């Protein structure tokens, strides 16, 4: 598999180029994440792109980049790995999936991309309303309804999907929330984490105005040239960070309870993705067989017990060979010529 990848390049020993956030909270959080995987990095005092050292993982060269630069570098294959927000990747390019794989969510850098309008627009609560207002906006006010954003691609795609027409995007390079009060726009598309800034600027999120729930991801580039050494470094890193995105497999559950109790527990179980394979006969307790997603096993057992089940037992389908690891999934797509 790595043969296919290395045939594209000559340098068998070229290191893995790892893009790390160059500053701030994103860098701190990335450091925490890597530390948990037994990897630490330090940046030398000289402020150059490649000035940094990684301890605990061989064959890696660090590149310090602003979060916004990361998507392009990954798209072009100038770095193999990078840490950046899903919002930035999706905004940067359509069909990004062909060039970038989101390897793992990192549980920081949470941000919702949303559509917000003035709170005083009591007649507007959905994107349908926004479309209605936009329809005769030019006639009333002499210019089209303006939406300020730096997420133009995602905004257009979202409005097109929702059927909002007759609006115009205006560029914003920061402090987007203030642009409505400043008279430069009628609505905004921006990221928000707590909604505090929106409230302070007298804006409200439309009821159906959530475009994307984003967080920081570890991302890999299919466009980069992967040497054997770089692939080895990736494998070592991925083996250590664990694999929460992987399908956990399913667990077989048996429990003793009556049909009515199972019926009561059923909605909660269904929400967890539990399937009921065999129900006890009506009227008296019997054996039920269920099948639960591996991650939800604990909760499923709890729900069954609370419903009055006895003799709850579980068996996970432990066949690790059957499920490809994160590294295997990545290298398979790389080898399949996803470029």
């Amino acid at each position: 598999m790595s043969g296919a990848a290395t045939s594209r390049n000559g340098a068998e020993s070229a290191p893995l180029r790892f893009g790390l956030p160059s500053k701030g909270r994103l860098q701190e959080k990335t450091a925490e994440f890597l530390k948990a995987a037994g990897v630490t990095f330090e940046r030398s005092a000289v402020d150059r792109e490649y000035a940094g050292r990684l301890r605990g993982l061989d064959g890696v060269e660090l590149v310090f980049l602003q979060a916004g630069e990361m998507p392009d570098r990954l798209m072009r294959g100038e770095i193999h790995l990078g840490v950046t927000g899903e919002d930035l990747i999706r905004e940067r390019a359509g069909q990004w999936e062909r060039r970038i794989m989101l390897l793992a969510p990192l549980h920081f850098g949470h941000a919702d991309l949303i559509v917000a309008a003035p709170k005083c627009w009591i007649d507007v609560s959905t994107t349908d309303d926004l479309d209605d207002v936009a329809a005769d906006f030019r006639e009333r006010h002499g210019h089209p309804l303006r939406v300020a954003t730096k997420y133009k691609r995602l905004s257009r795609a979202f409005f097109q999907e929702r059927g909002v027409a007759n609006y115009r995007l205006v560029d914003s390079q920061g402090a987007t929330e203030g642009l409505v009060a400043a008279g430069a726009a009628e609505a905004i598309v921006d990221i928000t984490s707590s909604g505090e800034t929106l409230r302070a600027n007298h804006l409200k999120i439309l009821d159906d105005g959530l475009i994307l729930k984003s967080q920081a991801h570890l991302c890999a580039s299919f466009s980069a040239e992967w040497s054997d050494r770089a692939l080895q470094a990736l494998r070592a890193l991925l083996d250590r960070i664990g694999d929460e995105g992987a399908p956990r497999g399913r667990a077989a559950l048996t429990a003793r309870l009556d049909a009515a109790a199972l019926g009561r527990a059923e909605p909660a179980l269904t929400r967890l993705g539990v399937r009921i394979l065999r129900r006890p006969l009506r009227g008296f307790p019997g054996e039920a067989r269920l099948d639960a997603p591996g991650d939800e096993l604990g909760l499923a057992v709890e729900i069954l017990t609370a419903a009055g089940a006895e003799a709850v037992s579980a068996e996970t389908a432990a066949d690790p060979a059957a499920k490809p690891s994160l590294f295997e999934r990545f290298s398979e797509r790389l080898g399949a010529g996803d470029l």
Partner: protein
Amino acid sequence: MLLETAVFDRLSASGLGRSAFAPQDYDGAALERLSAITDILMRIFGAEDAALVEPAILQPADILFDLYGEEIWERSFIIEDLEHGAWCLRPDFTAPVARSHLARAETGESARYRYCGPVFRRARGAGDGALQQLQAGVEVIDEADPATRDAEVFDLARQALDAAGCPPYDLVIGDLGLVFGLLDAVPMPDSWRARLRRHFWRPQRFSQLLRRLGGEAPSAGEASRMAFLKGFGALGEEDAARAISEMMALAETPQIGVRGSEEVAERFLRQAEDARAHPLPQASVDVIEAAVAVSGPADAALTRLKALAAEAKMDLSRQTTLFERRLEALSARGVEPSRLRFDAVFGRDLAYYDGFVFEMRPFPTKATPAPRRLGGGGRYDRLFQALGAERPVSGVGAALKPEAILAAIAAGDAAGAAAMDAGAAS
């Protein structure tokens, strides 16, 4: 470079290869064939002394925004800087020709134009063709006798394709006037009707809207808002206006933006008023759904639409008469209505058509499963209004794509040769 890559990605995802959208260079024999086709089209479009026009390739982008909104960014090549403003490589001829007609002609003057040149559009899917492609077309701007003009323009396109030697093709027609007439005849608040009209040419969006007006609430939030609005709508006008100002004062909501509290309150009250009509009666939803589902031979479709209108006790006679007269005019020109495929939801993918619409597509073959459209056209009376005409102006036009015709002829020849080979082999 990145731009090109992005376009390539989109097209690859839709099953088109790089060659399908790359503008083509022509020389030698291919150029001669292409010029010959273009000459034939332009000769036919020159009937009745249609004047040759050449709108500028760079058009002011603002005009396009008026016509299409932000969506045009996705489809057009826009050049923008602070000094020169925003300009757009013309994505079609109809709007620029209509614009220069308004600038040049006396009010109410009729005119005929023909044109030929490249247009520039980002392809969205198979059948759209190259980023740059030739178009040759005709526009007839005339108040008199729309049915006859419709048939005449359609026939010009047909004659031109035949004269150029184009192999048989699929024909589809629609009539937005008929569908809009139907929407006008169904009792409902004006704001709902405007919404449905605005989105008619986006079929998915249209049916979603219709279902929601019919009472399908996409979320609990929306259902409760509707209930709230209904309650509000039951208040008298004065009480409602006072309630609104009290509500806003209570929330200490400062006024921001250019929409004043009066405009907001007015629309809120209208919504509340409209909410009392919610949901649209099932019978109304049904008749709209039945009408947009009509497709088949044009004559049978007309019969079906008339029956639907009669059943719902609607007066669509003006629209159906126009449709009927158009079919008669086509028939007089040798176009058999039973051979025209009518599709009620066929509105082409441009917002400005509002009457008769048609399109010519090559039949797909194994070698070219998604052939480029040969051309099409339609009636666009509303376009002039959007461009700022002071009184109603009527226009209908057709545009053909010489390069697609050349490709269709080549594909036809190849299929013919293959059939001959197969015949010789057996």
